[in-house]
Structures are given as C-alpha cells and as structure tokens.
C-alpha cells in the first residue's frame, strides 16, 4: 500500500525565539527534510532611507543607531565616514582612536550576544546568554560614561566624535580589560568543545568560499568559509592601520566555524583594545567643532550650521560585527542627502539561506539562522 504524501509548510516566526526578532521563515518540508525555504521580512521596515532624505546630515546620525541596535557604534561610524568622504573632512587623531576603541568594545559586546544566543539555539537554554549579558553590561556602562546612552549611542559625529571620554573612563576600561580575558577563557572552556554545540553545528549549513563570495556574504560568515577578508586590514579606517591584530579564518564554512571565528575575534578585539588604550594620544576630538557638535536649532535645522557637502557621491564601508556595513550617499549640494542607502550585512548575509538550509532538517535550520547572526532592525531598516 502506498501512502499519499504532500509537502508540509511550517512557519518559523514572525514571533519565534529562534528568529531573534520579527522575521519569518516559511519552510516547506518533505517529512523532516527541508525542500524549500522562503524568507518573509519587512515587519520592522521603517523606511529609514526615505526618512533620511528629508533630514540633515547631522540629524541622520541617530537613524544609524537604530538599524543594527546591537552595534550602534559601528553603524554611526560607517555613516559619518561616508559623510566625511563626501564633504572632505579629516577627523583629528584622538577621534580616530576613540572610534577604534568604541568599535572594538562594540564588537566584543555584539559577538558576546551572538554566541550567547547561538548557544540558546543549540539548546543550552539561557545559561550562556546570561553570562554574556553580564559582560556586555560592563561595556554598555562604558558607553554610558562616554555618551550618556547604552544602546542607541549616537556618539560619532561628522569630523570626529561628540565629546571626549570622561576621566573615569580609562581606569574602568583598563580594569575591565583585565577581567574579560579570564571570562573569555571560561566561555571557551564551557562552549568551544561542548558536546551539544559540536554535535548540533559541525558540518551543518556549509558554505564554500566560492559560494560565500558569489552571494556577497561578508564578515565572520565569509571568514568562516576560509576567505581572509577583513576591511580593518584590507582597507583600514580609523586607527586600524597602526594596530597589530590577526584575522580569524575558518576552514569548513560550517556553523561551528562561524561560532569559533566569532570567539577568536573577541580575543582579537581585546588585544586591539589593550594597544589602543595605551597608544591613544591627547588632543581635540572633533575637526568641525561648531558644526558637528552644536546641533543646529530645532526651529531651523537647515540654518548656517547645517553641513552641505558639495555635489557628488560617496560609498564608505567598514567591518561591523556582522560584516561589511556600507553607506552610499548622493549629495545634490543641499543640507540633506539626495539618496541615502545602507548596505546592511544582516540583510545580504541572508541571501544564501535557502542554499544552506535546503536538504537539512528543521532543527538545523534554527541553528543555521542563528549562525548568520541577523539583527532584524538592520535587515528591514
């Protein structure tokens, strides 16, 4: 006797712990095998690109916090570098170092969330992520000291940063840098060779180097596939050209390698921070003091203080915790960008999701999506 069978559709999300936000995955199943994966996104679409066309360059900085809300500092940085390229502004030395320090603190905080929640997806329910939250809190405290906000920092400015760090920042950061390596040892012991994580992730969701490059995948995902491509090395911005660090590269391109690459990058971030705190010079923190730090009056945002870059276009990209974060700006000489486009790594890294999930099981799909490390605010913008 033959049984009549038909494909079965399962909706993962929009409200599901594994989607890390409001993101929906429609899986078509044949038994437990996935035969098709369709992404449904846009639940968090706020049309930032349209909003930005009606606001001045300085007013747009807070939007860049709210795309990738787990890495606001790098979002700010990519945008202000694009405006600086457009307007031809060179930030002072100390600002470059402050940008580097904040970016690396942010990378550590963002990666700790990535691996903590990834452990959640693997079945280590909540314990690792609570440990990660503990360390991330300390970093957010540092951000609060520097700019008054923990998540939506709005710290970078066109031509530098909004303000210098307060005197208590350095001792706190130095003390934190003494503690974090021990914590990281602990996590490596706990997670790297953990039987559950290894069994769930090794050989799952494999992406070869050629596939990863063809699908415009960037960041830890690309490096896990064996491509040593890091914009901090390939096209240094801020103060990265003066720092000594290594790029973590995986070999198999599977979920496990993505996880290991992130852990290794956290170690490198600490190494960078140690050097940067030592080497940071004194000096001014903003090249365009009046224009960039004094906000134009609310009643006249396009007044004499507004920045008006000359007609032209600029594309700037940096290495955000999730990958290559780019901003493409077109200026028509006015006080607001004519076109404001975000090349968001979370969004583009999802391109090969069907390629990675088709043929595997539902349980694997959850882990694969976790390894992409999306932030839905950045996917949908």
């Amino acid at each position, binding site marked *: 006797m033959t049984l009549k069978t038909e494909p079965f559709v399962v909706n993962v999300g929009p409200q599901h712990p594994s989607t890390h936000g409001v993101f929906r995955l429609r899986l078509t199943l044949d038994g437990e095998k996935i035969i098709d994966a369709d992404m449904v996104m846009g639940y968090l*679409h706020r049309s930032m690109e349209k909003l930005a066309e009606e606001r001045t360059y300085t007013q747009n900085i807070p939007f860049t916090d709210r795309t990738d809300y787990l890495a606001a500092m790098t979002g700010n940085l990519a945008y202000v570098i694009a405006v600086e390229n457009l307007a031809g502004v060179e930030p002072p030395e100390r600002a470059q170092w402050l940008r580097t320090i904040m970016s690396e603190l942010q990378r550590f905080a963002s990666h700790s969330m990535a691996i903590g929640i990834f452990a959640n997806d693997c079945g280590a329910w909540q314990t690792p992520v609570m440990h990660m939250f503990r360390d991330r809190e300390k970093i957010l405290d540092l951000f609060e000291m520097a700019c008054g906000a923990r998540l939506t920092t709005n710290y970078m400015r066109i031509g530098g940063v909004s303000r210098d760090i307060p005197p208590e920042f350095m001792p706190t950061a130095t003390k934190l840098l003494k503690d974090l390596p021990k914590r990281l040892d602990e996590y490596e012991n706990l997670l790297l060779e953990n039987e559950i994580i290894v069994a769930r992730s090794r050989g799952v969701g494999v992406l070869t180097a050629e596939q990863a490059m063809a699908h415009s995948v960037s960041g830890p995902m690309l490096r896990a596939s064996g491509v040593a491509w890091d914009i901090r090395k390939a096209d240094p911005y801020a103060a990265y050209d003066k720092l000594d660090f290594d*790029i973590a590269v995986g070999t198999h391109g599977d979920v496990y390698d993505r996880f290991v690459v992130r852990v290794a990058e956290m170690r490198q971030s600490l190494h960078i921070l140690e050097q940067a705190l030592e080497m940071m010079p004194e000096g001014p923190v903003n090249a365009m003091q009046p224009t960039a730090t004094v906000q134009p009056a609310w009643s006249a945002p396009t007044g004499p203080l507004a920045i008006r870059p000359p007609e032209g276009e600029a594309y700037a990209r940096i290495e955000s915790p999730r990958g290559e974060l780019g901003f493409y700006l077109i200026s028509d000489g006015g006080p607001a960008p004519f076109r404001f486009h975000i090349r968001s790594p979370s*969004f583009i890294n999802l391109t090969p999701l069907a390629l990675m999930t088709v043929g595997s099981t539902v349980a694997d799909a959850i882990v694969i999506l976790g390894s992409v490390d999306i932030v839905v605010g950045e996917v949908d913008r």
Partner: protein
Amino acid sequence: MSMAAGRPRSTLNITGLQIAHLIEQRFPGAVLDAAPEAATIDPARLIEVCTHLRDDPELRFEFLSSLTGVDRLDSFEVVYHLESIRLNQMTTIKVTTLDRENPVVPSVVPVWPGAHLQEREAYDLLGIEFDGHPDLRRIFLWEGFAGYPLRKDYLVGPGGRFPGLERFPGEAGDDMKDIRGTQ
C-alpha cells in the same frame, strides 16, 4: 581554524574613467557615459560586461558589495559597487533607464547571486524591474502595496506638494511650517 596576520593595505579604487576605458577596449560602444565616480553601461550589454568584470584576471570583481536603485527625477539609475577580494580593489558601474512608467534593467543575479535580495529591494521600493531575476517579488512591503515609496514623486501631498522633491521648503525662508504641515 587559523589566524592570518596580513599587512594593512588600502583598497585600490579604480575610478569610473579608468574602468570605462578598460571596458571600452573590450566592448566598443558599451560605455554610454564615464565620470570619475562611475561608468554608465549600456543596459543591453550589461550582462556581458559584468561577466567580463568578474572573470578577467586583471579585474576579478567577484564580490558585488552593494546594489542601489536611485531615482534621478528624469530617470532611474542602478548603481553597482564591485569589489575584488583577491586583488583588493573596487569600482563602481551604473545603468540608467529613462522610462519612468515601466523601468526595466537586466538582472545581474546570473553573474552575482548576491544581487538576489538587493534587486528585490530595489524593485519593492523603487519599482525598477529586473529582467531575468528568478523570483522578483516585493520584499519589505506586502503584495498590493500601492506605489513605490522611495520614488521622489511618491504620495503627492496636499496642495500638490511632493514631499520627496521639495525638501526643506522653508530653507530659504523662515521656519519648518511647510515641512510639518500646517499646525
């Protein structure tokens, strides 16, 4: 896993004029316009040019960094930021379509699969159709959404005002009344 040290270097930016020259040598007549920012390619020859840019051993642009749709008021433009990971260089090319009613450009998904979601985004928000795209559907907005919001003429406001066109109408004058509507 391994660690690669690597020396810091800068990405070489091949300007629009240089890339236009290189393309013109191989495909005479394929470049319609060249500016320092980008070379504008004839849409009919986009695929062969892009395939060449990807496969040429001197260029090797195997990584499509970003694809952007732009409303230029009289035309639509699609901007491709290309990167070569092996040779650490980047360049920018564009295609333009003058048809505002039914803008169509060829899809580059066969050359760079990484364009898949980005072309869907440009279609969703600007209404640019990509001929040859395997699965061209709206992505952020739902099927049936009226209009394309990133177009400059989207939603004509009260009094025939185009919010996307007349940015900062109070700029020359006094206040923000025009922007926020009459209150």
